[in-house]
């Protein structure tokens, strides 16, 4: 097992290099430049060209890449063009916010969907099952921004219970528990929207995974030898259902830090999704490259984690 993990980690290095080359090439060959949006306010081209020269915009792609890679190997991810701040600081400030929202909602939706999915599978074709199916279909069909705006209308405007947007009440300087409570009140709506959306799609997976397992021969054997239905479901079926669910959760784990542009935009949540969207529109090259690289590392690691978890859940899977 340890050898397997080490091997997988070593394989990550060439993958990482390959991904970085692709990302780098794609981003730098896209038309546009960091000062393009200033055309409408009358930035003279001559001035723009001087600046582009200074930031190395006209270097050839391999030269740019080698410069960048050299810096990265020295632990220097560069300076954001737009924010005049080290890329690490710019990203660092948003990662926490995004993680707070996505980790909690992923945890909640995983628990909720495992519970509801199994319930629906066990009570197949009953009223409970239908209700869960209908709710999850609604959850999948309703666009998240619509749900978000609807909830804002109800909770923030009509009932005036929760704040409309942001992550903290500005200018209050709360500390400790009051601050936590304040953040909680701000994150509740985006959390709810994300959880609803994720649960809705995951419930369907857990339900069908459980149904498939329940139809297997060994379940029938277990039942036939006289084990109680409850024991069979809890002990035999549940564990086998976990494998597809693990894949699903691991895939979501990889996207934890990418944030959701829509939710972050609607709730003005200062997270990664919005940051990277802005970075792309402004062609903030160092920020885009580092941001996307970070996300791809997350996905690579999440995949690795999923593979390791399979082995723990299902002893039949061996790594050689």
């Amino acid at each position, binding site marked *: 097992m340890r050898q397997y993990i080490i091997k997988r980690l070593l394989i990550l290095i060439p993958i990482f290099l390959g991904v970085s080359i692709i990302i780098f090439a794609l981003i730098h060959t896209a038309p546009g430049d960091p000062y393009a949006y200033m055309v409408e306010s009358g930035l003279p081209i001559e001035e723009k060209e001087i600046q582009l020269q200074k930031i190395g915009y006209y270097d050839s792609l391999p030269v740019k890449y080698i410069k960048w890679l050299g810096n990265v190997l020295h632990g220097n991810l560069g300076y954001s063009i737009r924010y005049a701040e080290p890329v690490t600081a710019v990203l660092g400030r948003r990662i926490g916010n995004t993680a707070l929202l996505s980790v909690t909602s992923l945890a909640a939706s995983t628990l909720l969907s495992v*519970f509801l999915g199994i319930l629906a599978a066990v009570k197949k074709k009953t009223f409970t099952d239908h209700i869960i199916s209908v709710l999850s279909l609604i959850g999948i069909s309703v666009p998240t921004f619509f749900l978000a705006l609807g909830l*804002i209308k109800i909770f923030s405007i009509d009932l005036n219970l929760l704040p409309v947007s942001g992550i903290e009440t500005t200018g209050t300087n709360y500390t400790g528990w009051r601050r936590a409570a304040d953040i909680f*009140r701000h994150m509740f709506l985006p959390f709810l929207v994300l959880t609803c959306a994720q649960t809705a799609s995951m419930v369907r997976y857990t339900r069908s995974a459980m149904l498939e397992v329940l139809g297997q021969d060994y379940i029938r054997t277990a039942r036939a030898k006289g084990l109680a239905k409850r024991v069979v479901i809890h002990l035999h079926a549940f564990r086998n259902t976990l494998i597809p669910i693990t894949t699903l959760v691991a895939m979501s784990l990889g996207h934890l830090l990418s944030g959701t542009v829509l939710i972050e935009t609607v709730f003005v949540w200062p997270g990664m999704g919005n940051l990277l969207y802005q970075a792309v529109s402004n062609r903030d090259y160092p920020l885009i490259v580092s941001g996307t690289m970070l996300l791809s590392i997350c996905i690579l690691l999440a995949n690795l984690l999923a593979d390791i978890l399979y082995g723990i859940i299902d002893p039949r899977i061996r790594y050689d």
Partner: protein
Amino acid sequence: MKKRWISLALATLLAMSALTSCGNPEKTNTTGKSSEATSEESTGPAEETGQEKILRLGSISSPTGIFNPLYASDDYTAYINNLIFQSLVSVDAGANLKSNLAESWDVSEDSKTVTFHLFENIKWSDGEPFTAEDVQFTLEFMADKNYTGLNSTYIQQIAGFDEKQNGTAENISGINVINNYTIAITTKEVYASFFEKIGRGISIIAKHIWEDVPVEDVEQSTELLQNPVGTGPFKLTEYVPDQYTALEKNPDYFEGNPKIDKIIIQVVNPDTAQAQLLNNELDMIRVESLNPDDIKIYEDAGFDVRSNLLNAYQHMVINLNDPLLANKDFRQAMAYAINREGIVSSLLYGYGNVANTVYTKEFFAYPGDDAINDYAYSPEKALEILTMKVGLEYKDKTLYQDGTPVKLTLLYPSGNKAREGAATVIQQNFKEIGIDLKLELVEFATLTSILQERKTDGFQLALLGNGFGADADVTQNVGTGGSNNHSQYSSEEIDALLAEGLTSLDNEARAPIYKKIATILNDELPVIYLYNWERFTILNPKIQNVEVTTYSFYDGVENWDIAE
């Protein structure tokens, strides 16, 4: 096992509902009753002064944290820098110069030297006195070859700029500090945009703060950039990217102690900002467009909705290398064919007007309605020109050129709803005159790179906006080879007039020249001018003394007040 899962899930749900319900009562004292409620809660200065006056502004985009006016390149940071820093002069609503850091100024007889007399009682927010040396330092800073801000063209006209830039001179010879409060600036030639670019366009930074920082390191001096020292009415206290920027009044501000104690500029989503205004979470916001329903909601709630025309226009760029588009009659026919009145009334809800030349109706260089053709919407007239003058054939509702149907492509950038809507209107209008117009939505940065490549066949038509300051010079937009002359228009007559316009510093003397330029452009149509639009400011009625002008958002901010 299953039970454990279920109980966990239930526990989470319970915890969630418990936490929300205990969050509710707290709501009442955080956002319940406007700024007074919040100020009572916050400790510190509020207790000393009794009641703190906090103005909460909404901003639809976050500033970038580059609080050095020589480097900031986006509007939202620039707005904040305008509260912290000052330029030598500023302008009033009518684009007339008025004092700012400089109390008065004299122009030499040959119009090449301007001597500024600075106010003598100005202090930087850290207590150091402001002097002419700061002005000299700022200008020379921008002339450094390592300066990476975007404004170095502003000062290229100062005598001795080149020597300073290429390192052969320590100082710029054209800048002469006469005493602590007097500075003379000499330009190589008469520089008509002097007051606009050097006087108004450059905010002065503190020598004692920046002199020890090598110019090439400025953009990496995050600490200094995020803790600015300025002379303006407010000083920055807190900057949280993507969330808010807090400023407090500068008690040493030389034009008087501002009446508002604190300004908090908060990033908001334009779609939900209305709710925040109505809930008193925000006091003021400015937005680029607003529909009558929203205006009514605000007005019914007692809000003050103001609008002012921006010194900007939306236009259709025309690639003049295309033989058909190079035909002036064809361009005029397009102007007649586009229902621009319709665009203004339906997409801008009437908050704007049809543009027929480069200047807005309120600008001093506008030649007057009588001097220009208004190209009133008339597909019949357009067809008449196309068939009679251009020599195209119109049959079966299609326009033919030498037997082939006329087809054009219009590129338009995403991100501006009214402009995106205008593209569809133009497509419909062109169909009425038999032209098949293909629309292509292009991301903004991609579009500008297509336009700036200056390829003869890179595009045919494109929609774009253009804004300018208080100066009438449009060399960049219509002069031969001008950097924003995307149509690649070239006219000797215009070039000569543009050059003539630059030979005086006196707007009254220049006005006739620019009026002539505007009249010619109205006839030549190097681009199709579409519309000018208004920007809205929505104000809670308790905010007083706010005057919003075309040129400055925070003009007179020291007089703004909040009613008890």
